């Protein structure tokens, strides 16, 4: 994303990834108390990284937890759909299983350990997620099934679009921004930034990864084959 007017540096509290970060503030219209925070994530070759999870926590204001939601992660054609969900802490997720075959969902991630048999025509109550963190999901019957839940207490969160961008209206103040993606190779601490949303109506954070992503899982392999 290119600034249409004279760029103005706000702050950069964590210059950890050399040359990877550019903070730009722009003039524009908007309510006096708020500004638009725009985050751009790029792969090392300069393409936008779609689907990266952005979480933004205010550093000055008292923490305001997002309201829990009810989300759905279905099982369709022996795959999780969607294969990544970002949910506020305390949320519930149902796993309805639209396949005609059975699944046995499991997680041994620290944030939530659970096992869930999903048989045809036998609905199972939603699962509640009370701890923050990344939860990796698998199926004990179909070894190639893989999905992630990111449980967050950040009031602002979302995923980057096809161009690698995400934006939100946030009150002026200092924020910690974290970026996560299941296939990132970077240390998570290198993907956290502090920034101040100041007087300008728009604040931009651009982050270019230094390490290429892990290859995406192969999805067109017939499910009947040995994994």
């Amino acid at each position: 994303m290119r600034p249409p007017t004279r760029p103005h540096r706000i702050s950069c509290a964590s210059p950890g990834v050399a040359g990877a970060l550019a903070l730009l503030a722009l003039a524009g219209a908007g309510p006096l108390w708020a500004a638009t925070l725009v985050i751009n994530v790029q792969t090392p070759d300069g393409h936008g990284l779609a689907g990266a999870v952005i979480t933004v926590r205010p550093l000055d204001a008292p923490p305001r937890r997002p309201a829990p939601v009810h989300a759905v992660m279905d099982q369709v054609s022996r795959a999780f759909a969607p294969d990544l969900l970002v949910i506020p802490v305390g949320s519930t997720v149902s796993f309805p299983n639209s396949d005609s075959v059975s699944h046995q969902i499991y997680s041994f991630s620290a944030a939530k350990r659970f096992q869930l048999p999903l048989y045809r025509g036998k609905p199972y109550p939603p699962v509640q997620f009370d701890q923050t963190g990344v939860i990796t999901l698998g199926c004990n019957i179909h070894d190639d099934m893989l999905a992630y839940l990111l449980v967050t207490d950040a009031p602002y969160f979302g995923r980057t679009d096809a161009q690698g961008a995400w934006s939100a209206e946030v009150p002026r103040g200092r924020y910690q921004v974290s970026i996560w993606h299941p296939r990132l190779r970077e240390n998570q601490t290198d993907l956290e930034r502090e920034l101040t949303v100041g007087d300008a109506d728009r604040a931009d954070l651009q982050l270019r990864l230094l390490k290429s992503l892990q290859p995406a899982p192969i999805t067109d392999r017939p499910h009947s084959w040995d994994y």
Partner: protein
Amino acid sequence: MPTLSRSAALITLLGLCVTGRAADWELSLDTRAVTSDAGRSFMDGGLGTTRFDRKDSGIQLGQARFAVTASLGELWSAHFDASAWDDKDRSPVGVTEAYLQFRPYPRAGYRFRLKAGAFYPPVSLENRAAGWESPYTLSYSAINTWLGVEVRTIGLEGQLDWLGTRSGHDFDLGLTAGAFGWNEGAGVVLASDGFMLHDRQTPVFGRVGPPGVGVLPFQQFDGRAGVYAGVEGRWLDRVVLRVLRYDNRADPTQMDTVSGAIAWNTRFDSAGLRIESGTGWTAILQWLDGETSIAPPGLQLEWPFRAQFALLSKRFGRQTLSARYDRFEVDTNIPEGDGWQIGHAWTAAWMFDADAHWRLALEWLRVRSYSYYRAEQGGPPLATETQLQFAVRYAFGSGVR
């Protein structure tokens, strides 16, 4: 032995009754149009290296297969795979695999699995489709053809995996160990026919070759269990590396007083590497090195064997093009050279999965080999055999979609 077939069928039926909802079955019929100039097939007692010989040119039954997988409660499942080939078998339908599997949920990054029954040891990286078929070619590599003919675990196998890819790492690691019986005949086909390339799996307790002269790989009379142990490493879902050491621990001095069969002590090391890309490419390398021996009174007869293959395959949507090069050799310590064989083979195949039910396949196979026994039977020891097959397969059932 039909006892196992009966018990497996019983187990499966029991499973269907108990769970009702959690069984998947599949029935498939594979017919072939074949043209071949190969010498007499092993199924007729010949030394041909392909499944179909020159007398088989025409329409043939490739395979009729029935398979069922049923959950028995949450952690156990039963698998049953039976086929008919219409070529002089001991029984019209043979069971190729029948086993129970115990599959507890992974805990703390580790997963344990246990199999009991009759099944293939984890050697092949090629036979990854349902029914231990290859999705790349109709005829298996020399290594995996031999496994299909003479090797089956009739016993127990435990597998322990560390699931690194489920806990933020790039790798998974696995350990496998098995103990098995009914293996005293394994090795006899290698020493008498040598390596071959085909897709004719021997049913459990089945016979290889025609009645009267055919051999029985799955026999138990020396009272000793065989063992194997292996390791497997995976990088994401792209690369698999497998190494396995196998020893049937047969006592080569033992003979079955009823049938006169002798125990073949067979042991081998195998290694395999499979690499897949996100763009549809697959490369498979497998290596096998072992020895089979017998020790009738006053004799010690040994047949070291080794084989390798390299397969390269590319998927274009629903079509797959594959090419494979095989090398194989059976040596012997018998000065006259009984059982000696050396050869190589090229295979090219096109597979088209029209939908979940229909599959078309075209395969060209050329095997060039020297064999001691061909010369002993009065022919030239060198043979170049070519087989062309066109296959149409229709599959249906609750497991086909």
